[in-house]
């Protein structure tokens, strides 16, 4: 039984208490500060909520499915108890006036947020090195990156500080750090969970998801996170239902372009081993080709920066966030607050976004990218007519070294090459731990499915966990 389920069971039965679980998690957080996974602890509020939940269990018969379960929230979700910074200086002391729908839903089932985790500022990055507050270090090797942008959440889960943590995935930001830290990381179908109250990066691909150490924990957490929300009109009508039967005789396509010589040998070997294990379970795994997918990264770095340039326009130093003290005019309030408050990667993306949307370049870049996106979606649909799922590595390498890719923006972007296709298509994808390198670094395999196939992907991963 997964950790989340066990804790809730213990708290509800009385063999543990919400307070004991929260105290344990806070202790774990404080004993692992060297990883720099957390930006803040919501200690006071967490303990208060723990006592409230313990009381509710005794007097009201509260039966929350996540009763007393401590969790960590990526710091781009608005939540109470500590500032919501998105790891940026421009939101350094921003106290959220409301909580995101997802956090509210989890709390209503008795889960307790103990802290906010580190990320690349505004989720712009694939290593958590773009955080304005310093990087997070890999749970297995502190000379390596945690991955990104949800590095902090991946690490606290890997270190067992909490049994689950929230992340966001716009182009791989849950899957890639999950892969780098040996945990499960789920990117659900676009629209499965509400984006309300989460700092927007690219509104057409942003999804809310989680990190766990076992699949049944992910199933439970996602079932609570998901659902149509009136406050987010892009949420789909409810469809997620935990699948109890193990899927049989599936047809799986191993994406050939993701298994080439430019991919780390040990990564390929781990994914090949996972394919073998799938075959042992009675599934068919064949090589398939996705020629359009090699352009997905270029599409992504046109469409997403364009949306970023729009979504980050609100940070103007006027109504909230940091306002510069150096301005002598309104234009300078905007210009200086933003220049001081954003990290270089934020500025790169905002400016690329402005470029591809600007007059004279719109057709060649943004419109071309939207059309290319159609070709990519068609490519997926054609494959899903014959195959149930696709299999490929989560990332071309295991966790790279701190500082290794920071001087080269495109090299950093290439870490996303295997995750962006599913993001652009809005389809679900799960990163599963698939082994380690000889030096002990985790490697993730990625299972991608058609829209709304989330529960079956998880059921497949669960059947592969049991050995």
């Amino acid at each position, binding site marked *: 039984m997964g950790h989340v389920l066990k804790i809730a069971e213990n708290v509800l039965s009385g063999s543990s208490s919400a307070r004991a679980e929260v105290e344990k998690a806070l202790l774990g957080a404080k004993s692992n500060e060297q990883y720099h996974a957390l930006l803040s602890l919501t200690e006071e509020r967490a303990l208060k909520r723990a006592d409230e939940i313990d009381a509710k269990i005794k007097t009201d018969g509260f039966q929350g499915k996540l009763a007393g379960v401590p969790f960590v929230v990526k710091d781009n979700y608005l939540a109470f108890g500590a500032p919501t910074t998105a790891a940026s200086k421009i939101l350094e002391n921003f106290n959220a006036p409301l909580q995101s729908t997802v956090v509210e839903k989890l709390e209503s089932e008795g889960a307790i947020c103990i802290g906010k985790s580190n990320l690349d500022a505004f989720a712009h990055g694939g290593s958590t090195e773009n955080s304005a507050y310093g990087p997070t270090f890999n749970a297995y090797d502190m000379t390596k990156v945690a991955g990104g942008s949800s590095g902090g959440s991946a690490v606290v889960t890997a270190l067992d500080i909490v049994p689950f943590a929230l992340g966001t995935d716009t182009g791989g930001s849950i899957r890639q750090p999950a892969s780098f830290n040996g945990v499960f990381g789920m990117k659900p179908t*676009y629209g499965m969970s509400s984006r309300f109250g989460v700092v927007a990066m690219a509104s057409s691909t942003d999804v809310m998801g989680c990190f766990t150490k076992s699949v049944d924990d992910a199933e439970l957490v996602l079932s609570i996170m998901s659902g149509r929300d009136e406050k987010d009109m892009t949420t789909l009508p409810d469809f997620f239902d935990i699948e109890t039967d193990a899927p049989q005789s599936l047809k799986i396509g191993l994406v050939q372009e993701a298994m080439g010589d430019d991919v780390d040998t040990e990564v390929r070997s781990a994914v090949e081993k996972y394919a073998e294990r799938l075959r042992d379970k009675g599934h068919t795994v064949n090589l398939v080709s996705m020629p359009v997918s090699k352009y997905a990264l270029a599409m992504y770095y046109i469409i997403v920066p364009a949306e970023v340039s729009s979504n980050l326009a609100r940070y103007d130093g006027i109504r909230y966030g940091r306002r510069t003290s150096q301005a*002598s005019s309104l234009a300078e309030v905007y210009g200086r607050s933003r220049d001081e408050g954003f990290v270089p990667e934020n500025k790169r993306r905002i400016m690329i976004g402005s470029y591809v949307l600007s007059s004279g370049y719109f057709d060649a870049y943004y*419109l071309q990218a*939207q059309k290319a996106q159609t070709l990519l979606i068609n490519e997926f649909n054609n494959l899903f007519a014959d195959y149930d799922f696709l299999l490929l590595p989560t990332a071309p390498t295991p966790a790279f070294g701190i500082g290794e890719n920071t001087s080269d923006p495109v090299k950093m972007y290439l870490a996303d090459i295997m995750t962006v296709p599913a993001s652009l298509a809005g389809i679900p994808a799960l990163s599963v731990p698939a082994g380690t390198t000889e030096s002990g670094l985790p490697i993730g395999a990625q299972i991608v499915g058609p829209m709304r196939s989330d529960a079956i992907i998880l059921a497949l991963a669960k059947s592969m966990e049991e050995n």
Partner: protein
Amino acid sequence: MSTITTDDVQHLAQLSNLLLSDEEVSSLRDDLGEILEYIDQLAELDTTGVEPTYQVSGLDNVWRSDEVQQDPATRELLLSLAPDKAENQVKVPKVL
């Protein structure tokens, strides 16, 4: 397709409301040039006759009833977030 100049960077900075230092302009010019070189390869894809994708969820207009709903965030709470305020309003430098 594109080589980006310092003037281009200044123009983009203006469009994006970013007041950049000279070093930033120079370093961004190099970075943006590199990024553009990568994304330029998208021109290789033949997209003649292909419709753009506007959204992936397939949803149509989603309506709600035209009723005022009380926001959880009150006026006081929102005002407390402002960097500078006076007389129950957000205070800003003069516009004109």
